[in-house]
């Protein structure tokens, strides 16, 4: 109504609904109440069809406004649900026993209604392991775990929150605080808590997802409300000592004390820290839960745009492909941040993707044109490559071409059943290739050609999944098979990506002895730090022209970017970078250091042995790595190499495997 008072012209219900973040239906219902009130207060609600509504009054607008301010949310007919909530809220807020009279007064309904409501209230509380106690002469009071009570209060508030509107408010500060929040906590309080958290986010560089941020704001507001009435929270089960979150919580606590004069104490601090930690988790749940898509609406829009484009071009139905939606959304969520900041995630498979799937690549490139326009940025080929991979996976899943999923039907009870089952499968799951039907004994013949076995018998086979079904294939069974197909397709995608492409290396397997020889082994090398050590190892490979000097820089950059994860075991660094044009052939070198160096690896420093390794795309180097893995898996070999003074001895030992 205040809004209508300010707007002097007619407004449509749609617009009002938008402003308040509720449905038009609610507004229409509310307008009836407004009309009622107007009738009592010398005002009229003028409804003009096609234009909307407007308030007209014979008294001063100022006066109307005053009267309005006196209105409490209770001055209207409440639904049963609203009453239950209000009773819960009142009971929690008071912290002391409340009599029936008191409650009926607060809720503005008869004692009988309150008694009726109390039954529901009791059930609600029991659902949460809280107890409603009645003390004669004193009234009702809620007993239970403080954290559970807070959770309930939180939910009571959160239930009525329009998250989208709230997220808008929290992200663009200029908007008005949603009225229901203001009504519960007061503008000023919300604003202060909000600013404190904003500041905390900035000072500690601990950004939170919108939903998590709002959650924490409400949690703190709830906590403050509870502290005021003297409620104390238990120490959380999991404690978070020494985490950065605890430091942030500590800071927030001090701020709350300074701003509101509220003493929080260690338990509250731990709880806030838990929420901060939870905020991280929340972001994850957020990404998965369909109910919390608000925060990623923008990503969703673009993901849909990409899929829609791809659908049009390929004629495939992909919008129902949950897997594509999900994986692409996950990918794009982080990718969008990269795009905005102008950062690029290098794609190690780029060349391969472009060669193998030029069509997909082109498609991916075109599908993001709208996004590029929107961001006013060009999206690099590396990024396009990732999108192409997702599309390619979906294409294979849906077109049933490429990675064809094959199954074998096994049946012990006779050819008839298995043939029947095969026919059913072929008509119901055309994308699945049933290569044959056979008995258990003949399974061996097919085992290398199938992804899984479908059988009417419940037994296990070595090395393969057996899906147990009835001959008539019920829906649940079909779903089960589909799940297996999706799994198999997805996994195949990755194997294909890393599988050796015969054209590139003639399918030749490289053994450790093919790459390690006297020229690429050096003992007792002097190096001042880890970078120097990597350079010393890398230069041996440059000398034999196996890599370009830039590859050495790439190995070093990788550690700067990703951390010293290449220190794969105590004393051993396995330096390598992405296979790209700076690699001429798969190769490896090894040096031992005169003085060990620190790589910054907490678990495995100091390092005395540095391998430099470069791979061509594909898995031709697998065998060499396998040999090396065998060598390194024996600690005594590592010790031997570290202490070895003779190059030939060292080389012999390395090649023993």
């Amino acid at each position, binding site marked *: 109504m205040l809004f209508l008072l300010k707007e002097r012209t007619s407004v449509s219900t749609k617009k009002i609904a938008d402003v308040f973040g509720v449905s038009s239906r609610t507004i229409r219902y509310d307008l009836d109440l407004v009309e009622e009130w107007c009738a009592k207060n010398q005002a009229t609600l003028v409804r003009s069809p096609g234009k909307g509504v407007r308030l007209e009054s014979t008294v001063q607008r100022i006066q109307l406004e005053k009267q309005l301010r006196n209105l409490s949310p209770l001055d209207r007919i409440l639904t049963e649900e609203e009453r239950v909530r209000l009773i819960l809220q009142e009971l929690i807020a008071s912290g002391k026993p409340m009599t029936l009279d008191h409650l009926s007064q607060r809720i503005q309904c008869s004692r009988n209604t309150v008694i009726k409501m109390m039954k529901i209230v009791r059930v609600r509380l029991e659902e949460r392991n809280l107890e409603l106690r009645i003390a004669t002469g004193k009234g009702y009071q809620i007993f239970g775990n403080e954290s559970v009570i807070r959770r309930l209060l939180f939910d009571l508030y959160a239930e009525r929150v329009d998250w989208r509107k709230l997220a808008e408010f929290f992200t663009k500060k200029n908007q008005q605080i949603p009225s229901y929040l203001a009504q519960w906590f007061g503008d000023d309080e919300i604003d202060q808590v909000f600013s404190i958290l904003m500041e905390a986010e900035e000072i500690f560089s601990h950004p939170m997802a919108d939903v998590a941020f709002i959650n924490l704001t409400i949690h703190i507001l709830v906590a403050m409300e509870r502290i005021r009435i003297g409620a104390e929270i238990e120490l959380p089960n999991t404690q978070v000592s020494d985490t950065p979150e605890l430091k942030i919580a500590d800071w927030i606590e001090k701020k709350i004390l300074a701003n509101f004069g509220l003493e929080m104490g260690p338990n509250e601090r731990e709880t806030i820290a838990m929420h901060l930690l939870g905020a*991280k988790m929340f*972001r*994850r749940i957020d990404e*998965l839960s369909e109910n919390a898509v608000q925060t990623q609406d923008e990503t969703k829009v673009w993901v849909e745009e990409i899929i829609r484009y791809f659908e049009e071009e390929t004629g495939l139905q992909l919008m129902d492909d949950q897997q594509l939606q999900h*994986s692409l959304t*996950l*990918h794009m969520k*982080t990718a969008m941040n990269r795009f905005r900041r102008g950062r690029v*995630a290098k*794609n*190690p498979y780029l060349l391969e993707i472009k060669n193998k799937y030029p069509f997909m690549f082109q498609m991916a490139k075109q599908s993001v044109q709208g996004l590029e326009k929107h961001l006013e940025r060009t999206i690099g080929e590396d990024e396009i490559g*990732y999108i192409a*991979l*997702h599309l390619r996976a979906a294409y294979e899943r849906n077109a049933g071409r490429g990675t064809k999923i094959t199954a074998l039907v096994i049946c012990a009870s006779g050819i008839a059943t298995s043939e029947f089952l095969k026919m059913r499968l072929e008509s119901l799951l055309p994308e699945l290739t049933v290569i044959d039907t056979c008995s258990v004994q003949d399974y061996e013949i097919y085992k290398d050609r199938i992804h899984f076995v479908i059988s009417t018998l419940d037994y*296990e086979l*070595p*090395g*393969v*999944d057996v899906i147990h079904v009835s001959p008539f294939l019920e829906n649940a069974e079909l779903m089960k098979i589909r799940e297996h197909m*999706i*799994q198999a397709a*997805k*996994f195949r995608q*990755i*194997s294909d990506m*890393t599988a050796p492409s015969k054209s590139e290396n003639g399918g030749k397997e490289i053994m450790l002895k093919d790459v390690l020889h006297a020229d690429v082994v050096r003992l007792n090398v002097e190096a001042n730090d880890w970078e120097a050590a990597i350079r010393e190892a890398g230069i041996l490979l440059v000398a034999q022209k196996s890599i370009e000097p830039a590859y050495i820089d790439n190995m070093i950059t*990788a550690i700067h*970017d*990703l*951390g*010293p*994860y*290449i220190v*794969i*075991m*105590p004393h*051993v660094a*396995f330096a*390598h*970078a*992405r*296979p790209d044009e700076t690699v001429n052939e798969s190769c490896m070198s090894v040096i031992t250091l005169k003085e060990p160096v620190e790589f910054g*690896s*907490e*678990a*495995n420093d100091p390092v005395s042995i540095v391998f430099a*390794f470069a*791979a061509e795309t594909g898995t031709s*180097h*697998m065998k060499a*790595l*396998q040999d*090396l*893995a065998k060598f*390194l*898996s024996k600690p005594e070999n590592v010790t031997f190499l570290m202490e070895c003074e003779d190059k030939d001895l060292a080389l012999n030992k390395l090649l023993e495997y």
Partner: protein
Amino acid sequence: MKKIKILAVCGFGVGSSMLLKMNVDDVMQAQGIRAEVETADIMTASSVNADLIFTSKELYGQLKDKVTIPLIEILNFMDHKEIEEKCMPIIREILGQ
């Protein structure tokens, strides 16, 4: 018995993850677990379907927010015992044993 899908993750999916994969393979074999172990780089790891992921301490932090399946941090890629101790409880859980 269900076949477990395992992903070994490193920066590029070609070097250290391959070494890790081999050791995981060995452990799985020794434990009699049917497992398919693949390698992946850190960028694509989160979109691959698997039952659990192995990675290094350094990459653990970068991955943990992106995946919902169990993530195991391995300090010594060559240490069969470490691999075994860290993953077997999780694998047993996945297999419902």
